[in-house]
């Protein structure tokens, strides 16, 4: 009987609690929802946290869904429970824009966050050499052209095999594992570019895309490329004990360890804030987020959050995001973006 009563009362209590909290189910209009790229996620979360602590608004909620998945959610509609912002490590595709428009998302405001640069570094005392994307491809791909129109598996063991001008040291490159976004970007921006310097491969891109992908995007696994984990600090530490090794790290790590390592210039360009920001350094890409204009009037904290993101203290040249590894835009570009975004937001914001 005791249990009967206990169960009865606990059910009543739970029903009251649930009913109570259900009645408090106000609309979620006060909290920004962000989805999208895992590359932008670390920056987004830092801004969101500071925004939540320093303002009277709630901290935005940020999900890491990948760029494509982010657009899918972003373009699903303009209703109450839809997301306000999606992060992207590339610009929006025309097909994604069409999908958005079909679902009523018409006012898409593009905001550039900054750049993501990937650098090849080696020990400060190592013999300096300049490298091209074709050299990177020849050193790291699993299959390379044999020079007679066919393909062979890569048997270059020395840098001098790749290019006679290079020193004859063993090819040893420490880089991130396949789960890493840095590696994806490296493959896309460095390997593929190098790969496409061969005419035979360019024709392959159209005639046999899957073969093209396999040749250009597969990194050799015979020990020349060493997976050194996601931790860039670790790679830097290993480089200082091995002068012959190269490491693939994010640009910010070069910046913080300039006393220990030096960057290899690629296609003749040395990585620098300026070279990355203007795009002349090839292994770099802009990072964006997209704001749903339709939600600006509805989600009260959306505009302040975007403002906080575009604040000089955050994405500016010496903003706190640079401490987290963001390559910032130049002051001029930053200013221009800020004005453009503010204008776009205000023009949408007026119409409720």
């Amino acid at each position, binding site marked *: 009987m005791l249990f009967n009563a206990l169960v009865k009362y606990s059910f009543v209590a739970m029903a009251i*609690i649930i009913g109570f*909290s259900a009645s408090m189910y106000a609309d979620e209009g006060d909290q920004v929802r962000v989805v999208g790229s895992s590359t932008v996620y670390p920056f987004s979360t830092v801004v969101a*946290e500071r925004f939540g602590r*320093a303002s009277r608004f709630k901290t935005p909620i940020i*999900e890491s869904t990948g760029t494509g998945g982010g657009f899918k959610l972003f373009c699903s509609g303009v209703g109450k429970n839809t997301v306000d912002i999606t992060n992207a490590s590339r610009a929006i595709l025309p097909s994604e824009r069409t999908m958005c428009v079909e679902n009523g998302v018409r006012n898409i405001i593009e905001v550039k966050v900054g750049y993501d640069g990937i650098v090849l570094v080696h020990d400060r005392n190592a013999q300096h050499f300049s490298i091209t994307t074709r050299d990177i491809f020849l050193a790291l791909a699993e299959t390379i052209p044999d020079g007679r129109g066919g393909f062979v598996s890569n048997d270059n063991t020395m840098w001098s095999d790749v290019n006679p001008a290079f020193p004859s040291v063993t090819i040893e490159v420490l880089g991130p594992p396949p789960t890493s976004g840095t590696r994806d970007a490296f493959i896309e921006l460095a390997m593929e570019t190098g790969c496409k310097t061969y005419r035979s491969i360019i024709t392959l891109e159209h005639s046999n895309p899957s073969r093209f992908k396999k040749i250009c995007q597969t990194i050799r696994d015979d020990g020349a490329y060493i997976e050194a984990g996601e931790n860039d600090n670790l790679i830097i530490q290993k480089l200082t004990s091995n002068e012959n090794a190269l490491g693939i790290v994010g640009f910010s790590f070069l910046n913080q360890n300039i006393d220990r390592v030096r960057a290899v210039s690629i296609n003749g360009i040395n990585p620098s804030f300026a070279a990355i920001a203007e795009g002349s350094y090839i292994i770099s890409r802009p990072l964006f987020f997209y704001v749903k204009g339709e939600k600006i009037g509805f989600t009260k904290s959306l505009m302040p959050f975007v403002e906080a993101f575009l604040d000089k*203290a955050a994405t500016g040249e010496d903003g706190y995001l640079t*401490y987290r590894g963001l390559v910032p835009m130049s002051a001029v570009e930053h200013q221009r973006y800020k004005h453009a975004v503010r204008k776009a937001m205000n023009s949408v914001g007026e119409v409720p």
Partner: protein
Amino acid sequence: MTNKPHPLSMASLPGLDKRYRAEKRFKFAGVLAVFSSLAFLGFLIVAIALKSAGAFQTYEVEILVKKEKYLELRDQPFIFLQSTMRYNLSGVVNGQAMREAVNMVVDGAEIDLLDHIENLQQNTRADGLGSYSVWVTLSNRVVSALSKQDIGTNLTARQQAWVEGWVANNKVRQRFNVGFLTNGDSRDPERAGIGSALVGSAFMLLVCMVLSFGVGILAAIYLEEFAPKNKYTVFLEVNINNLATVPSIIFGLLGLSVFLNLFGLPRSAAIVGGMVLALMTMPTIIIASRLALQSVPLSIREAAFSVGASPLQTVFHHVLPLALPGMLTGTILGMARAIGETAPLLMIGMLAFIVEAPDNIFDPASVLPVQIFLWAESPERGFEEKTAAAIIVLLAFLLVMNLTAIILRKKLEKKW
């Protein structure tokens, strides 16, 4: 053993020693199995516990802030922090030194500083010296140098000198990290806590419990006491048993397509998480409850019927109270599984950076296992110990729940 003469002679029982040897081998293998599993468990727990030690402590440094600087710079937090650090540390002469100085305290310390000073103004206004003294959390890098006594490896020469100066002047204090149990998630390991995740887990468990216990027990009673035994109920039974073994990620997909897309419930909310987990635990509860009902002897029911009770009265007045301890045990074990579940929650948007604790079950919520997953993925070094500490908390939770189940069973279950 071997030199003692056995009552049955070996000669009369050929092969006896062989059978004894087989038994010994089996015993040895069994003991080995038990010990190795215990060793693995012990290793796991000791490793995690050792790693988590640092997470429960926090180091703070006393920072002096000039009042006029505060009034002048409070609208530019980062510049305010820089000027404060320059005031507190000697030799901040160039950009590199400034960077090192700012790195001495936790990232985002400017907001802490401003916050503290504002509260101080409202509460006390006591200091007449023209400066505030604020305790600020040290950065993880400095803390690891302090606690491991290897100041040299992580810090620059300048930073080492600063730390030594602070320690010499008694400006550094160490205390229990209350924030770890009360704060929400943060990108700074120094500030991250499991407070929000605990609240989120509690809300989710509440929803899961109400749904799975309510529905599960009703289903079990109906199937066991009222339903006719025909091919339909047998089919149902097979399905329920099958459902109990479905991988949890499938329930997550179901939650995504039905609860989120069809019903339009909010993403990352405790209610959706609770509903998904309720689906997952319900079969377990139904099976456990049916076993509990079956264990109530027929004589109880017959006695009730014989004094004129209706079937409903029989079940609710006599059978159910006797079966309840068993049902509760099953429910608690189901809940214990649910609280540690992550996979289905990933599908419904709970793998997200959520700082604030939810106010109700419709608010976006973070839960313990997801928090552990997020921290384990974070690149910042300090999250290693936070992850371990969160695992310890989750294990403690599970231990309490399982203990409750055992105690309930021991105390209340009747043997017939």
